[in-house]
Structure formats: C-alpha cells, structure tokens
C-alpha cells in the first residue's frame, strides 16, 4: 500500500521534473521497450532498466526511484532518447532525477567523492605514480595531478 503522503511527494517530483527541467511527456510512454533493448548499461547490469524508471514515474513511484542507486547507472549515451518513438527525453529525465536526488542528499557516496575530486583536482580520477610510470614507458611526459585552470574555473562558477 502506498500512503497518501507519499503520493503527493511523488506528484511533486513529477511536477518538479516538468517545471524545472522541462522534461514532460512521460505519460505518453507505451512501454515498447526500445529504450531498454538498446541500452548499453542494461546489457552489462540487468538491475538498470530505463523502461522501468519511466514506468515508475508514470505510476507515481518517483520517491522510491530517488532512494535507489539505479538512476546512477545510466551512461548518458542518449541512445534511448534518440530512439524513443514517443519522443520522451529519457536521458534528460534521468539527469534531472539525479539532480533531484543530490539536492535531497540521496546520491551514492562514490558520486560525491568523484564530485569532490573534480572540484579539488579538476580530474575525473586521481593520478598517482603508477600512471606516471605507464606514461614514461610510452615515452609521454608526466602529468600534473591537478589541473589548475579547471579548478579555478569551477571555483569561479560556484
């Protein structure tokens, strides 16, 4: 049973998605599965299913979506969005859901750590000696662990 309180919250999520991110039209989904069948993330991890995410939004279960880690498995390749016969902006929707989750402090720990890394070093993953050794072998110059320009720009932005 879904309690009425939760339902309003779910409706709020849908409204939020529509108003703030301009991603509407989920209700026109006819569950053809084109998104799920073409999804590279789904091929690797059966737990991830874009069709299910859209379904849950339609069925007003957005809140439980935000609580799960599945929305973070999307690789943002936009295949589903390109192919959706109903023109639903699936990838944009998932990005919007992630934004909502972060705002509510529900992002998985790894995501926060990675964000911090980008903020402090300007890199998606930390460089260490191992990387430098590999580069040296390939005859490449070593890299600075921090990209100052990126860090500066990110600071200015915030």
């Amino acid at each position, binding site marked *: 049973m879904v309690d009425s309180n939760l339902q309003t919250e779910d409706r709020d999520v849908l409204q939020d998605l529509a108003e703030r991110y301009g991603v509407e039209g989920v209700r026109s989904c006819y569950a*053809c*599965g084109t998104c799920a*069948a073409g999804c590279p993330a*789904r091929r690797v991890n059966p737990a991830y299913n874009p069709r299910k995410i859209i379904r849950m939004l339609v069925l007003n279960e957005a809140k439980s979506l935000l609580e799960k880690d599945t929305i973070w498995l999307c690789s943002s390749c936009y295949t589903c969005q390109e192919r959706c*016969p109903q023109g639903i902006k699936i990838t944009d929707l998932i990005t919007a859901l992630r934004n909502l989750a972060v705002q509510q402090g529900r992002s998985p720990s790894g995501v926060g750590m990675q964000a911090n890394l980008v903020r402090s070093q300007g890199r998606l993953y930390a460089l260490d000696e191992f990387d430098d050794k590999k580069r040296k072998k390939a005859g490449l110059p070593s890299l600075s662990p921090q990209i100052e320009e990126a860090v500066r720009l990110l600071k200015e932005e915030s």
Partner: protein
Amino acid sequence: MTDVGRHPRITLYTMSELLDIKGYVGNFDARILKKARYVKENECTACGECAKACPVIRPDEFNLGLSSRKAIYSPFPQAVPSAYAINISECLGNNPVVCGKCVEACDKKCIDFHMSDQEIVEKVGTIIVATGLEPYDPTELDEYGYTRFQNVVTSLEFERLINAGGPSGGDPVRPTDKKIPKSIGFVQCVGSRSASRGAAYCSNICCMNTIKSTLVLKEHYPDMDIKVFYLDIRAFGKGFEDLYMRSRRLGVNYIRGFPGTVEEDENKNLRVTVENTASSKLEIHELDMLVLAIGIKPAESTRKLQEMLGLQLTPDGFFLEAHPKLQPVDAATRGIFYAGCAEAPKDIKESVTQASAASARAIRLMHKGHITSEPIISEVMEERCKSCGRCVEVCPYKAITCDVKNKKPAVVNAAACAGCGTCAAECPFDAIEMNHFTSIQIMNQVNALLEEKPQEKILAFACNWCSYAGADYAGVSRIQYPANVRVIRTMCSGRVDEDFIWEGFRKGAPVVLVSGCHIGDCHYINANHWTEKRIEKVRKKMAKLGLRPERLQLAWISAAEGARFANVMKEMEKLRAAVTENEISQTVTLLKEKK
C-alpha cells in the same frame, strides 16, 4: 483491372499525369499529359520477343529490385493494358549502330520511336481521388539495420518473396544465400506510431499483414521458428481476431517489445536484442531473417493534387473528408470524392468499400444530368462591382471568378457556391448579396432586436452549423443562461459583415458577440479564418476610435457545446454589465457622426 480496361464506358489513361484541373461539379476540365509508350497499345500482343532482344538490364520496380527487367517491358503480368512500354531514359535509342534490337524483334512492327507525349483535355462531371500511398523507408531507423544487413527486409519485399508469381517463385528465401530461413522475425510498427521517426498514426494494415504472413509460413513450413516483436496487435476487423488466434495456436511466438539492436554475425545471421516487456528480461534472439512491417505514408502526389483541386489535408498529410462520420467519402468541394489510402491508411476490403461508396456518391450526382443547387448562394450586383478581386481571394470554394485586369465584374458560379457568405461580408463595395441572408434582412434584425432598451441586450451572431446548434443544445438540455441574449443566425460566421457590428454599436448595443465553428471544423472549409481576421481588424478600428475592443467578442462554440454556449453567454453578460450608459451614449454619438 482487366474488366476496367475492357469496359466500353471507361477510358483508362495509363502512364499519364494530371497537369491541371479547372471547373466545378459537372464541368471539370482535366488537362492530362499522356506520356509516350513507344509501343502501339492496340497492336502489341505482349509476346515478349522485344524484351528478350533488349540488352538493357534494370532493377524491376514491381519486385522492389529483387529481380530485373529490360528497358522495354511490361511492369507486371496483370498490367492493364497488356502492351509493353519503353522507358526512354534507359533505352539506348533506335540507332541501328547502337541498338534498335527490339524493332527488329517485333514481328507485328508495333514499336514506334516517333511517338511523342500527348496532351489531352477531358471534360468530367465528378472526380474520385484514389492516388494511393507511399511505403515508409525504414533506413533512418538505424537500430534495425535495414540496407546495412541484407537479411533485413521490408514487409513489402517479403510480400514479393512469398508471392507465387514473385522473383523466388513463392519461396521465402533469404537474400544472402537463397536458402529458406529456419527462423524469422517480424518487427511491428516500423515507421508508425512514432512521434520522432516515421509517422505518429497507426498504419492500420501492418498487424494483419504480419499475421497473414505468419500463417502462410506456418502452412508451408510448420517447423519454422517465427517470432513477432510487437507493441499492440490491432486485430479489430471482421474475422481478424480469429486469424490472430490461429497464428498463436500454430506456435508463432509473439513477444511484446521492440528490438533495440540488430547485429549480423559471420554467417549473415541476425542477433536481435529485445526487452521482453512481459517478463522484463533482456532477450537475444538468433534469427536467419528479419522482416520490418513498414507503415504507410501519403502518396507523393497528394500535395500537388490538393493544391490543384483546392482540397484539405489532415495533419497527417492524407486527404480530409467533408465529415468524418456522415460524409466519409466526400471532399468538402462538391463533386469530388475519395477512395482508398489517399484518404487514410486502410486495407483492401475497406478500400473497396470506400471506392464503391465513392462511385455511388458520384453516380447520385451524375445520373440526373443536372444539379440542384441550394437557393442560399451569393449574387454579384454587377453595377456596383469594381472588379477588385477580393471575393475571389476569400471564397473557400473557388466559386467566384473575376477578370481584374479587364475590369469585368465578378461572376459567382451557382453550382460551386456553398453559401457561406464570406464574399458578401468582405466586399468593400457591398456589391455582393447573399440570398436569404441579405444585408437588409440582417440589418433589420439588428435594428429590431435593439429597438427597446438596447443597453440591456447582448447582440450575438451565431453560425447555423455550430454555434446556433450549440444554443439549441443548451436549450434542449435546459441549461440556464442570461435571458437578454439576442441571437441572429447566419449560415457561417464568415457572413458577419463589419457593417452589422458597427450598426449594432450604433444602435446602442453594449456588447457584440460573433460565434462560429472551431477553427478546423468550419462547415465551409476555412471561412471562419476570415471571420477571425475580420474581428481582429474591427477591434483595432475600435481601439483607434476610443472604444473598448473587449466589447466585441469572438467565440468558437460547437453544436455539442451547449454548456459552453451558456458559459460564453454568462461571460458576455459580465462584460455587458461593465459597460456604462455613458459609454454607450458616447459610442452612439461617435458612430452616428462618423456615418
């Protein structure tokens, strides 16, 4: 088809193009370009010796390129007339040095390279538009791999393959190795029901076509593994559900979900990835062949024909009928009818039904030899007409002609005029009279309705088909609305002349409402577009004169919207109440001075 070709009272123009069509019901002049065939139609016996001699080989369009033909050919075995034809852009030419082999081969000497295109003018009374369809090209749906993988074919190509008269003699061979596939898949809704690629509508025929194909396959190859990837099976016609159930019972595997990717392996087999939405599992199917059930598009000629005949199209691009329920085969222009996929995607049975109906509707007009026209039509008062051509511009039926250059007065064609009265309303010189809804009649109504206590009245113009019927509906449904509404009926809101509105305000009307059918639902094609423009114009003039434009309202009310009629009237009453006596008397003096 042969019956049509042999019928003494049917003239068949093949290889012909309609250049131009003018006129009206009973008197259409069709200019037809009959392209040269280069073979004498009446003498050719279709022995085929010429084609044997012809050295030019081209893909056969009828078999969708699955077989070849020559430059001199008969398009398909049942073609009418049966005479061969030369595609002159492919022919090497009748030069003994270069070729001319067909001329030598023809014993009856019926090949004539001196033929030229002919222009023919035919006078016809009625027209049936049956220009057919265009199949959807699925190349843009890159996930299905059509044209990338040879063993992915369209339903149309597959149809040629399983046809006994087709290039493979009815064997559904796969294109790469000419072997009968052990497993075969069908993908539904290719280019249909899609907002992003293809068309948004359902193409109507593909479900049953696929079911038919599965039954044919199961009959010949009971062990063949057949899978249908579908979203919804729409088996809504007579006997359709039975066929669908038979197909299921025979073991055809119906999988709900569309493929996401199609890949080819080294044996040219196909790996189809699909989300089975019934089990929520990602499945990979190994198939020998994949058939795409392609949708239907409007024919390429549709737009050209629409302009030529002054017809309407639906947003989908098919021809729009005069009424979706009561006149499903008639065009809005009298004397023109539709049949087949020109009007909407449909199967053979429905096409035959519609064609029978269209010909019956045409005969109904033709058999008498004359046409009874409505008395409600417009008439030009020649002495007043200044030949400006405005009426020609606004007539939705192209019923008015006017020689603007030579300053000859406009002429209304009584057979083509439908009686909306837009011309009469738009004529700047009041030179057009609308019979039964004359300016004098309507002006008198305005005056009579506003004779006593005009400040308490709401003057409303309502069109006969929608708004007036809406008022009626409000009445029979016993919906309450302000009793001080005074309605004047016109055939169309397009009839409401600027002068009527000004006269209303001059006689002390606080507010005026003009109402008609919703945009797109006008019973006179698009006459209410002119209403909309006119009201906008009058409102601007009102603002310039210092009158509040809100006092003139425009509302679209359909015949079924009784409640809406009442609501609009309640809104009008609010507006009326806000107009002060002082404002009315100022308007009256201002307009009287102006007059």
